């Protein structure tokens, strides 16, 4: 008897140890929180409950007894009106109770509050294991300083910002002025900060929409990794120094362009996305302004070369974005976004092709405007013809394959195009001192 008792005890102890280890691996924070609790009695009860839940899930896993997954939210095509009405009445019944249950949850006796919360009938019987799994997915909304750099990088869309800053740098480098490193660095940093600010504000405005699209559902605000106040504060802390740096460190024209671009992106493009397909053209202007800023930073003025560069970036946006949006039509439709790919598919493909051809034309205009030598349109011809070919295929085939090919081509086409422009930059004429810097 003693041996049996000892063996049972050691078996139980082993189980507890195993469960504790699993708990620690899978939800260390929650587990440590339990351990740190001062009230020993409460810890013991909670600890036991927690382990009991773990035991149930482990048992189910080890015996391959998968808890029947909750039914998909897709109702059967022939959903009866009756069940919908039932759902309606459930909602109305639940509503008056929810404030009460909220205040009840403050009481120390959690069990009581759980019992008093109404269980919707439509959910059916919820297995304990599923409930625990759902509970484990709840995260405390506490800012973790270690994660902050990664969170802010995602909030500011750092990769997109890097691309924006590189187009600004290209504008600066292509401008007919001696390359001034301090000015370049100020422009670089200022534009980067302005872009971070604009992207953060955009994410702040679009949380419910981002939650509903696959491409954007893991953004920091959607996941609650950062509070909205902190996101907006971060945006302000980027926008103010960024614009100030551009205005007083570089020149007022560049600062004004930066500020205008933030406004255009956050207050025009973002709301327009859900109102009209014109948003794509506005967005293309937003993309065209950074190289303009680079040019004005170097020369202090907007001239034909600046507008050519802006025009190149403007045209590039169309094959890039229209091709991307072709694969996102379902998400756009469900999210209420007005995009050409959904509402005017023929126009979408026509515009993409049109602007691929415009890129060819603008390559030829570059030497005519003294931005580059005549070598440039010649050596850029192969890549320009290739993207135009892909644009034509997209126009003709109108399928996912051709849209993806065009999109991925646009990703390498732009940097290569700008690089070729740089290598063929028109050398400065003798006695050309370059424009005023500020």
């Amino acid at each position, binding site marked *: 008897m003693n041996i049996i008792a000892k063996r049972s005890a050691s078996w139980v102890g082993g189980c507890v140890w195993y469960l504790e280890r699993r708990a620690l691996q899978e939800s260390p924070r929650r587990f440590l929180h339990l351990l740190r609790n001062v009230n020993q009695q409460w810890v013991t009860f909670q600890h036991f409950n927690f382990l009991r839940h773990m035991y149930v899930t482990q048992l189910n896993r080890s015996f391959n007894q998968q808890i029947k997954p909750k039914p998909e939210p897709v109702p059967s095509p022939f959903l009866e009106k009756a069940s919908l009405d039932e*759902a309606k009445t459930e909602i109305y019944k639940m509503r008056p109770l929810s404030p009460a249950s909220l205040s009840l949850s403050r009481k120390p006796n959690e069990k009581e509050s759980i019992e008093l919360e109404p269980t919707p009938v439509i959910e059916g019987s919820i297995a304990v294991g599923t409930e625990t799994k759902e509970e484990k997915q709840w995260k405390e909304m506490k800012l973790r300083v270690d994660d902050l750099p990664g969170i802010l990088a995602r909030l500011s869309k750092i990769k997109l910002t890097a691309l924006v800053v590189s187009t600004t740098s290209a504008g600066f480098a292509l401008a007919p002025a001696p390359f001034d490193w301090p000015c370049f660095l100020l422009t670089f940093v200022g534009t980067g900060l302005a872009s971070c600010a604009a992207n953060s504000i955009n994410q702040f405005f679009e949380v419910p929409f981002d939650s509903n699209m696959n491409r954007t559902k893991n953004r920091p605000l959607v996941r609650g990794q950062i509070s909205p106040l902190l996101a907006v504060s971060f945006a302000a802390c980027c926008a103010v120094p960024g614009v100030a740096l551009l205005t007083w460190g570089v020149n007022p024209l560049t600062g004004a362009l930066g500020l205008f671009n933030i406004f255009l992106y956050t207050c025009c493009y973002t709301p327009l996305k859900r109102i009209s397909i014109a948003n794509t053209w506005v967005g293309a202007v937003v993309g065209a302004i950074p190289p303009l800023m680079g040019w004005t930073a170097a020369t202090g003025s907007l001239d034909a070369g600046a507008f050519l560069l802006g025009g190149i970036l403007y045209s590039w946006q169309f094959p890039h974005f229209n091709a991307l949006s072709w694969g996102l039509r379902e998400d756009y439709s*469900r999210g*209420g976004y007005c995009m050409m790919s959904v509402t005017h598919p023929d126009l979408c493909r026509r515009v993409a092709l049109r602007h691929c051809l415009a890129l060819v034309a603008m390559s030829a205009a570059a030497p005519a405007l003294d931005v580059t030598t005549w070598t440039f349109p010649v050596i850029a011809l192969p890549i320009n013809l290739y993207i135009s070919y892909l644009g034509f295929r997209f126009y003709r085939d109108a399928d996912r394959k051709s849209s993806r090919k065009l999109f991925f081509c646009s990703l390498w086409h732009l940097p290569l195009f700008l690089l070729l422009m740089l290598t063929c930059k028109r050398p400065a004429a003798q006695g050309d001192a370059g424009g005023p810097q500020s």
Partner: protein
Amino acid sequence: MAALRPRRRALLRLCRAFSSGGCQLAPERGGERRDAAPSRVSRFCPPRKSCHDWIGPPDKYSNLRPVHFYIPENESPLEQKLRELRQETQDWNQQFWANQNLTFLKEKEKFIDSRLKAKGLELRAESGQKATLNAEEMADFYKQFLSKNFQKHMYYNRNVSEAGCSVTTASPDQ
């Protein structure tokens, strides 16, 4: 007119309350409530010692992550008002999106069914797999859905912007 100091204190408390939670926007009173959208009431209760909000997994219907708001012991009326506003907003958003997504799925099924019938095909192939239409065939549906629901989306967008303003400018005097 309230004195400056209490206003500042109230504003700081407001900021603290706003900072610890999710970005939720208040509804217009008597808005979309009549829409029947299954809304799961989560049985989650945070640990007693926690003094932060908790955010859950995405809701199956709305894809929005519910926030369980922390209620401090010494919550002021203003903080309570803000919290209730945020809770209402969250519920409103939840209902809208759950309804939106369910409607979308239902109408998509209807559309697929009608197109397959028009083609003379069965809903399920011989292998038992559900027959689907390709992306180009579905494009008609996406366009239809978007234009049909345009007014509804406009209404939502307007309210969401107004709500954003009311949450951020919740007056300390009331």
